[in-house]
């Protein structure tokens, strides 16, 4: 292991380390990338020209400089990002100190470690596949270092592939049995600063429209029974009460025990929500229970105890037919009537007029919905920009808008007419993936609707968008926007092949999320219980893991050793070997280089009682194997002699 390295080893090792470090390029500061690239290049140049490696002083200088740089950039040397940056630069510098095969082995193991760091950032299938390729190539490097003569690259790759394939059973065993830790292992301070995606707790004209351009998955749902109709799929998110003339905002959460009456049996389903950095957990109107570690507000938002920064999976039940809030307090209803003074005067005028014309609240509501349906309003993803009196401009001039425009205008009209109203944001609908039978809800499905409070009925959901574009509610966003090429390509329905492909990929990704990334302590416990192992502790898991590893290693060893055994086809030779091994078990093993006659003589000297059968056998054997005889009868006679031989 102390031999110096050939330049091809250096080349391959440098290349494979560069491959492993490549995904970090997008996350590291530019000067670090430049430094690492320069060092890689320098090392390759040195390997090519066989110039001596840089002195210790130079390396120490770069180490100090780079460490200082990392500290200045991240303002710490700890944590995920700074740690990875340091690891990358140190590994690159170690390349410049690589002289012997032992150094190379160290670098190979560092390379494996660097592979793991990539999973701190991304745990998707493409990352996993890429890292698998990296591990494959690093392993091939390791195999190559152990050869003194240069074998063909394909041979190295094959050997490394076989090694990886042999490790698969162990990998599965460790995946299933390694004690799991609640929550992600790598919760780092940097995570909390990650920008959040998806819904927010404010809504102004244009905010929903922006969301509609994103094909990112918000969450996936699998229903226990049939998926309800699209018009029933209102996924409740933030509820907005406060309006300042342009922007709707959520108030401070009011945690109360909401009361409700249900009229129908609940639907049961499981939600797997993608990380979005906020606390909301989504459920169908009206949620019938709470996921673990979450609370509900009095307006039926479900809030997780900690922001959703990792993928989360929870079981839910919802009642699609309900009444609630009939006994809402006067103070609460007063909050649902607030309007900022001085904004949208024309809307206020219209509301007063409607109030005069129609007697009941229901009639006022219906009049507004009729207006949306018939007075030339249209549903579009590219509405004109609106000015200060946004609702006025929308209602009387533009008459074009997206869900936020309609819900906002409706709520303002209602409030102006004296009917308590609020905005509910969330998602509407979703796409059923026939492969895997689950519902995909994307950011593009983001929606805003209203709830109005009617005496005797409580809070009632009214979706003004339904009045202008029934298709949005009945069949979803892609159907409603069929004419407009604004939606992301993958969401539009006009390319059936693309759609199919996308659904296939999503199904695979969903399984990956559910079974690989979502293999939580609970799931592990459930699996072990099903295997008859109740109350699995750390210790029993460790023992099980050890036993399983030992068994796998043994099995592999047996398989490998079987391959080493030479299979003898020649019956004459096989009979001879059987004969020899019989004598071998009596302490008279044939030496490899011992000819048949010499062997027979030795055996006869050691065991004079065996002389006759041994000599007879050997004579026949030599005649058959080295002579010109090829008589089958003699062969079977030889086999018989070998069988009957009892030393």
């Amino acid at each position: 292991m102390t031999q110096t390295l050939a330049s091809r080893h250096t080349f391959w090792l440098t290349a494979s380390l560069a491959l492993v470090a490549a995904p970090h390029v997008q996350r590291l500061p530019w000067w670090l990338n430049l430094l690492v690239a320069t060092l890689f290049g320098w090392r390759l140049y040195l390997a090519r020209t066989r110039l001596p490696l840089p002195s210790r002083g130079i390396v120490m200088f770069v180490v100090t400089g780079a460490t200082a740089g990392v500290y200045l950039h991240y303002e710490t040397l700890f944590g995920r990002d700074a740690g990875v940056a340091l690891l990358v630069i140190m590994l690159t510098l170690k390349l410049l100190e690589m002289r012997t095969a032992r150094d190379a082995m160290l670098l190979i193991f560092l390379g494996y470690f660097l592979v793991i760091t990539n999973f701190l950032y991304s745990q998707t299938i493409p990352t996993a596949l890429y890292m698998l390729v990296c591990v494959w190539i690093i392993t091939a490097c390791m195999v190559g270092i152990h050869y003194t003569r240069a074998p063909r690259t394909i041979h190295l790759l094959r050997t490394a592939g076989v090694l990886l394939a042999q490790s698969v059973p162990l990998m599965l065993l460790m995946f299933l049995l390694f004690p799991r830790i609640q929550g992600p292992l790598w919760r780092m301070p940097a995570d909390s600063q990650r920008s959040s995606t998806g819904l927010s707790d404010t809504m102004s004209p244009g905010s929903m429209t922006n969301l509609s351009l994103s094909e990112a998955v918000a969450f996936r749902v699998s229903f226990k029974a049939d998926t309800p109709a699209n018009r029933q799929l209102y996924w409740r998110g933030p509820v907005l009460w406060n309006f300042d003339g342009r922007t709707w905002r959520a108030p401070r959460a009011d945690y109360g025990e909401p009361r409700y009456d249900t009229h129908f049996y609940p639907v049961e389903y499981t939600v797997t929500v993608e990380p979005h950095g906020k606390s909301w957990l989504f459920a169908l109107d009206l949620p019938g229970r709470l996921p673990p570690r979450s609370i509900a507000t009095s307006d039926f938002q479900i809030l997780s105890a900690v922001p959703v920064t990792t993928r989360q999976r929870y079981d839910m039940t919802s009642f699609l037919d309900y009444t609630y809030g009939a006994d809402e307090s006067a103070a609460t209803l007063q909050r649902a009537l607030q309007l900022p003074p001085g904004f949208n005067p024309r809307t206020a005028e219209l509301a007063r007029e409607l109030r005069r014309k129609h007697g009941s609240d229901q009639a006022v509501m219906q009049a507004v919905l009729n207006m949306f349906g018939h007075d030339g309003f249209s549903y579009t993803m590219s509405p004109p920009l609106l000015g200060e009196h946004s609702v006025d401009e929308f209602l009387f001039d533009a008459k074009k808008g997206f869900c936020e425009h309609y819900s906002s205008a409706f709520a303002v009209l209602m409030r102006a007419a004296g009917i308590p109203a609020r905005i509910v944001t969330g998602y509407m609908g979703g796409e059923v993936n026939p492969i895997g039978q689950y519902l995909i809800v994307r950011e593009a499905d983001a929606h805003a609707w209203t709830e109005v409070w009617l005496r005797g009925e409580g809070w009632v959901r009214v979706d003004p968008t339904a009045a202008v574009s029934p298709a949005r509610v009945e069949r979803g966003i892609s159907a409603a926007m069929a004419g407009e090429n604004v939606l992301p390509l993958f969401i539009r329905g006009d390319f059936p092949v693309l759609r199919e492909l996308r659904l296939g990929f999503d199904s695979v990704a969903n399984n990956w999320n559910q079974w690989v990334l979502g293999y939580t302590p609970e799931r592990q416990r459930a699996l072990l219980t099903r295997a008859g192992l109740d109350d699995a502790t750390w210790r029993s898991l460790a023992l099980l893991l050890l036993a399983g590893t030992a068994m796998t290693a043994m099995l592999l060893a047996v398989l490998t050793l079987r391959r080493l055994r030479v299979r003898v086809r020649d019956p004459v030779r096989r009979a001879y070997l059987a004969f020899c091994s019989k004598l071998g078990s009596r302490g008279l093993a044939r030496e490899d280089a011992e000819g048949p006659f010499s062997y027979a003589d030795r055996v006869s000297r050691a065991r004079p009682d065996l002389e006759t059968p041994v000599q007879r056998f050997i004579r026949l054997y030599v005649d058959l194997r080295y002579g010109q005889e090829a008589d089958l009868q003699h062969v079977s006679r030889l086999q018989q002699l070998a069988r009957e031989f009892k030393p």
Partner: protein
Amino acid sequence: MTTRINKVVERVGGIILGKELQIRLAVACLLARGHLLIEDIPGVGKTTLAHALAASVGLSFQRVQFTSDLLPADILGVSIYNRDSGTFQFHPGPIFTQVVLADEVNRATPKAQSALLEAMEEHQVTIDGETRRLPQPFFVIATQNPSYQVGTFPLPESQLDRFLMRIQLGYPGADAERALLQGQDRRDLLQKLGACLRGEDLTELQQEAQQVHVASALLDYVQAIVRHTRASAEYANGLSPRAALALLHAARAWALMESRKHVVPEDVQAVLGGVVGHRLIPTGDGARINGSDIAQHLIKQVPIP
């Protein structure tokens, strides 16, 4: 017929005491139509062995003492002008005989050596543009001093290769030496030694040796040995195909002497020391010079397939 061969071995063994294995190898070499090189220090009976062998097989015999001033013509012969007939007349050299003893072959210059070696290979000599065939059977026994002795021109490897076998006599054992010291003069014994084979018998036996069967299992073994010498770092060069052929010929002759119709691995092992001893040059410091040591080492390393 094989009993007669054993009689030859017996008779020669009566003169060269305690060296049965070497005598048997020498006879096998003769049966395999190869030439024999005997290498050892002076005075252990090289020349006597050659004499005894030639005498007991009843072949015509000539001896050439190689010296540093020996010329090719001294071996091959020369054409001399005959004044009576007015023509050049060829006077054949000592090589025109059935058994040539080239004594101390490595004391001659390479020029003289190569004259002999060409004759060995071609079984004919070309003098003054005229090709003359040598008598059959033609058998060269060369003796040489170990190369570390003073005044030698070591034979190059390519020429060593032309000898089927090289044997080394070594000092006799204590009993054999005592018998030698007590016994008659060897020269007198040689005079009395009658032939127990005729030339035709020898030719017949040589043909019979070629008929000995070699099974493919045995070829596997020979190839394994050859392959091992080529792959191993212990030898400067591996065995050549010619060496493999030589091994096979010698093993056949040995099998014939053992009255077998086919060759077995033991035959190969028996002749291995004689055949490969001068062809394999061990590398490293503790080089095994001795042919049988090289062979024993090689035998241990190659399993019989």
